[in-house]
């Protein structure tokens, strides 16, 4: 704020301060809220943190009793704290042959491994101990092979993960773009033109969201089989587009209603065509709404499980059913599942963070304005 001497006594008052908000008690209140908020974040994110820790655990560490919480790098970060001298029965440190104390890992510590990450990308086969020894000595294996060799596994080829991930990107990405585009067009028409039976149309669009997936799955399954688009990308893209359309139309209509009609009318008077007015006047104004709608559609299409499980088998299967059915030889490979889940989470989180300002505003419209 400019000083009084600079602006003088007759300068206009440009800002006001709510006295009740700068009171020390109010300020203390905000501090307490901030602390509580951080605690909430810690609790809410614990499962996600656990996911991240599991990513870098070996298979025995992932299911160790008691559970291991502290990652360390051998000879590196945190290893000083995690490796403690082993004690003899009389309490003296046990010494090795070289006279150095023998170290052991604390219960809560585990050393970081990339097994899960490598395991996610490659198919593996178990080796006999003799083979393992022979392979370990062979120089022709790269770092990724060596990580698995240490566990007695050899890479036999790329896993299906990359395919599934690509399917998810194609299907969720395309269907989100389509849902937002078609939704925007329909929302514009509903917002700007007098359409006969408009409320009925809109309710019909909303009600499509209420259907339990199984009601539509069986007929769609039969229809897809008939049309020959069962287990195809195009089939899944269209399905997800339709399921996001209702949300997209409703949210975007709320946004477009907020944009004054006068803007376009002015543009029309200035010689723009309706299409040009839509492109050059309405679209930039609706950016926030488009962003928020995109996030919601993407989260749904990206994470959808039931349809993908029932309507795809191999060609077009997306990540969620694939993660859910990940099995290793003899037991669940938690590290691989965790890695797949984390890699799968990242795109959505990045996009949400990038658009978070829009998201907060975005939810207001469409919900409040009806």
């Amino acid at each position, binding site marked *: 704020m400019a000083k009084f001497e600079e602006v003088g006594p007759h300068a206009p008052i440009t800002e006001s301060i709510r006295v009740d908000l700068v009171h020390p008690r109010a300020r203390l209140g905000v501090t307490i809220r901030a602390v509580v908020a951080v605690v909430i974040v810690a609790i809410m994110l614990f499962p996600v943190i656990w996911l991240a820790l599991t990513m870098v655990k070996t298979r025995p560490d992932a299911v160790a009793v008691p559970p291991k919480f502290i990652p360390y790098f051998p000879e590196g970060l945190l290893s000083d704290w995690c490796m403690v001298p082993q004690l003899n029965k009389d309490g003296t440190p046990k010494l090795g042959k070289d006279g150095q104390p023998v170290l052991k890992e604390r219960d809560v510590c585990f050393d970081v491994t990339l097994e899960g990450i490598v395991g996610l990308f490659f198919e593996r086969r178990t080796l006999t101990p003799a083979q393992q020894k022979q392979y370990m000595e062979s120089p022709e294996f790269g770092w990724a092979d060596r990580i698995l060799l240490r566990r007695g596994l050899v890479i036999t080829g790329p896993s299906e993960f990359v395919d599934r991930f690509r399917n998810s990107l194609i299907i969720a990405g395309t269907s989100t773009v389509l849902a937002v585009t078609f939704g925007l067009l329909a929302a*514009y028409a509903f917002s700007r033109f007098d359409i006969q039976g408009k409320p009925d149309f809109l309710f019909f669009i909303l009600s499509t969201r*209420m259907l339990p997936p199984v009601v539509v799955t069986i007929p769609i399954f039969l229809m897809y089989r008939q049309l020959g688009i069962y287990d195809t990308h195009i089939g899944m893209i269209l399905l997800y587009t339709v399921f996001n359309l209702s949300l997209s139309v409703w949210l975007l209509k709320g946004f477009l209603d907020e944009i004054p009609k006068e803007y376009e009318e002015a543009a029309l008077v200035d*010689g723009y065509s309706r*299409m040009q007015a839509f492109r050059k006047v309405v679209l930039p104004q609706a950016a926030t709404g488009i962003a928020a709608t995109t996030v919601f559609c993407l989260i749904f299409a990206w994470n959808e499980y*039931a349809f993908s499980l029932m309507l795809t088998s191999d060609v077009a299967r997306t990540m969620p059913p694939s993660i859910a059915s990940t099995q290793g030889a003899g037991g669940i490979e938690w590290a691989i599942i965790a890695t797949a889940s984390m890699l799968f989470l990242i795109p959505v989180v990045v996009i949400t963070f990038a658009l978070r300002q829009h998201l907060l505003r975005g939810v207001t419209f469409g919900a409040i304005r009806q």
Partner: protein
Amino acid sequence: MTATTALQAEKVTPRHRVRRISDKTIQTAFILPTMVLLILWNIFPLFYSLYLSFTEYSVISGAPPRWVGFENYRNVLSDPLIWKYFALTGRFALLSVGLQTIIGFAMAMIVRAKFRGSGFITTLILIPMMLSPVVVGKFWAMIYNPTFGPLNYLLGMPPPRGPDWLANPEFALWSVVLVDVWMWSPFVMLLCLSGLKAIPEYLYEAAAIDRASAWFQFWRITLPQVAPLLMIAILFRTIEAFKQFDVVMGLTGGGPGDATELIAVKLYRIAFLGRFDTGIASAFAYIVLIIIIAISNLYIRYLNRLRGEA
């Protein structure tokens, strides 16, 4: 002279031709793709499954559907187990939506205050709802695990003292509720937060001038103003609770026994496992749909009344 030439030149530019598209055409062209998609993917399946619900049919048998009238509906409605699952789903919806509402609203009240990094923290809280529900189910199953799961350990109940949350019929439903609450409270928070942000500041200013207590401000300003959005959140979450499938499949698969056999899981089992009873599943699905629409209507009516008063 020059002006006329310019005008004539203008007339032959493509822009002018574009203008000849009438509003009516644009309107139709804009709505058409949405309508075609919705009709093909929703109306057709809806009527087709209505037809199937009156037939005996299995997608894997290859035999054509055989008309049986209301028999499927009679079978479903006279099955006491189905009613048990409906009651269970109702209990699940009540518990989980109730808790989500309270927790989501409380979180919104806390993060509504502007402090350094509050926007960042709000977005962090949203992360659970960005996860794939089935992954969430799978991973929470690990967290709940009585031997190597971190939950019992952190609660100070190392094995073998801690309960097996998912295998114990008493705790199983609560465990599913907890996961659902964890995942979707942020959604309620987001809706409440946008409601809170929309409350005009002058209401609080007036209350502050009148020296109204914080309690009074909450009951007379905050709650009534947020109520419509809160109701929308509750509506969405109730609809979703009746459709709950992914998390349960990942966590318990309906077990132990049938302690968490929600209707959506049962529906899947009838339709896609065992005998693939498409006819019965369709009839069952229709009953579920009618119930969801009835509940939604109750909510929407209440919501409209709330709006009318506000």
